[in-house]
């Protein structure tokens, strides 16, 4: 008897099965846990608790504010850098870009630890004692430090794609620097801004490693919140995770769908 004809499509079956078991089903389990109580009866208590507890809502508010500030600072630093590098005529500019990505390959926790030590040193200097208790400042600094490459890379790749002829045409037609920037560079770099913003905003709302290590455990963000419930109440934890899940999907959808993240992690350098 002959084996059934080999079809190329069948190659994706293992991955499809893997996704069903370890991505789809866990997501459904989260929904199930969020809407049940500890005896696994259907209940909306977690839902009501979550939206009526001022301390929870204020944590979420702070978390969003921290993430917004981080994103704006990242954008303000990354945009000029990406612009300068993309428009530069330097031959070896990829080396400078590489320098911005290089620290990303050091282990994340070790990198945050390095920032911690830098702040320890700074706070020992005369006149710099305020750093010791500036937990929010340190947290935002750490997040900007860690997520900056995620902003630079997509901006750089989109700006590099802008046709040179557009700049030439703009100069020929007598436009100055600012007219060229606001009519050509800025509008055409919007996709890069969008993917950079999602790549920075979401982790700075949830990655509590930075806020824990730099904020003296005084800064609580949504991610930390979920992890705190992990120990004792999985149902409440699932509820917050579900809210976060919905926020993530909404913001991804609003910023133009699933952007090409393969450009973002420095693989295409």
């Amino acid at each position, binding site marked *: 008897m002959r084996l059934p004809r*080999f*079809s*190329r*499509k*069948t*190659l*994706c079956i*293992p*991955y*499809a099965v*893997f*996704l069903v078991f*370890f*991505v*789809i089903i*866990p*997501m459904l*389990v*989260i929904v199930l846990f969020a809407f049940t109580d500890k005896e696994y009866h259907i209940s909306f208590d977690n839902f009501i608790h979550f939206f009526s507890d001022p301390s929870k809502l204020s944590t979420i508010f702070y978390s969003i504010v921290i993430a917004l500030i981080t994103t704006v600072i990242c954008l303000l630093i990354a945009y000029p*850098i990406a612009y*300068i*590098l993309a428009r530069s005529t330097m031959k070896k500019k990829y080396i400078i870009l*590489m320098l*911005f990505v*290089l*620290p990303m390959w*050091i*282990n*994340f926790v*070790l*990198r945050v*630890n*390095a*920032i911690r*030590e*830098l702040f320890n040193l700074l706070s020992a200097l005369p006149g710099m004692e305020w750093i010791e208790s500036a937990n929010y400042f340190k947290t935002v600094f750490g997040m900007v*430090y860690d997520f900056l490459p995620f902003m630079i890379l997509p901006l750089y790749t989109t700006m590099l794609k802008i046709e040179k002829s557009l700049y030439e045409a703009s100069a020929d037609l007598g436009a100055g620097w600012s007219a060229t920037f606001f009519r050509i560079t800025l509008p055409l770099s919007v996709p890069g801004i969008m993917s950079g913003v999602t790549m920075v905003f*979401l*982790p700075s*709302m*949830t*990655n*509590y*490693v930075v806020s824990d*290590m730099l904020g003296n455990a005084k800064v609580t963000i*949504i*991610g930390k919140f*979920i992890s705190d419930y*992990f120990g004792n109440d999985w149902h409440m*934890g699932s509820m917050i*995770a579900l809210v*976060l*899940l919905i926020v*993530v999907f909404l913001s991804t959808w609003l910023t133009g769908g*699933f952007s090409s*993240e*393969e450009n973002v*992690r420095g*693989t*295409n350098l």
Partner: protein
Amino acid sequence: MNKQFALKCCKAAFVGLALLILYAPILLLAIYSFDKTNMIGKFEGFSLTHYAELFRNSKVLGMIGNTFLLAFLAAILSTLLGTLGAVGMYYSKKKAKMLIHGASQIPVINAEIVTALSLTVTFVAIGLGRSYFTLLIGHMVICTPFVVLSVMPKLKQMDNSLYEAALDLGASPLKALVTVVLPQIIPGVISGFMLAVTLSLDDYIVTMYTRPSGFETISTYVYNATTKGNAHTAVTLSSFWALTTIIFVVIVLIVLLSNLSSIRKKEAKR
């Protein structure tokens, strides 16, 4: 002319300052890793104590080994699964492709803590608990989608007629895949593998929740040592300075070597 020069200086200063801030913490640790004492701020004299401490401590060496072995295993399995998945998806019907791609994007955009929570709750609910197996699965969940994302563009750039030609010339579909398709997508497979290694090495959150008890990686070990005080750890934090320095130097060497070899290849082509 003068104005242009000033502008150039401004640009260079901005980029330079950003790089300076980016490298300041790493260089600081690199300098103090060679200090006698474990106090940052005063350099008491050159010594290799922190390096010796790092290599003498079996616990630390164990967690470094754990980290790299896990990254290697997770990356190999993710690359295999992701490459097969990407090839299969590429030839699937549009609807199936969309569905798999959509599911594959979930761990990419999702917050890591949500992925970690969903996996752990599921593992415990079905009685798997937490073991090396669940840890490996956790790492595969975060790595495989990125392998798919780096193989997909290479499939799209591929010349499809070559596969058809191989079939016409009598190759079996499997042989045609291995000898014709695979060589064309191999750069994507390699960069996917590298990406998977770095993602796994870097991970803290998923590791923290899916690991078996007592299992430490660099991330979990350093995190716990710094946030919970180092009373319960056998190493002082200063040996992490040495570890950071070693990792940094290795990375710089890898980047330099790979750039040199690619420049040589380009010159050889000429």
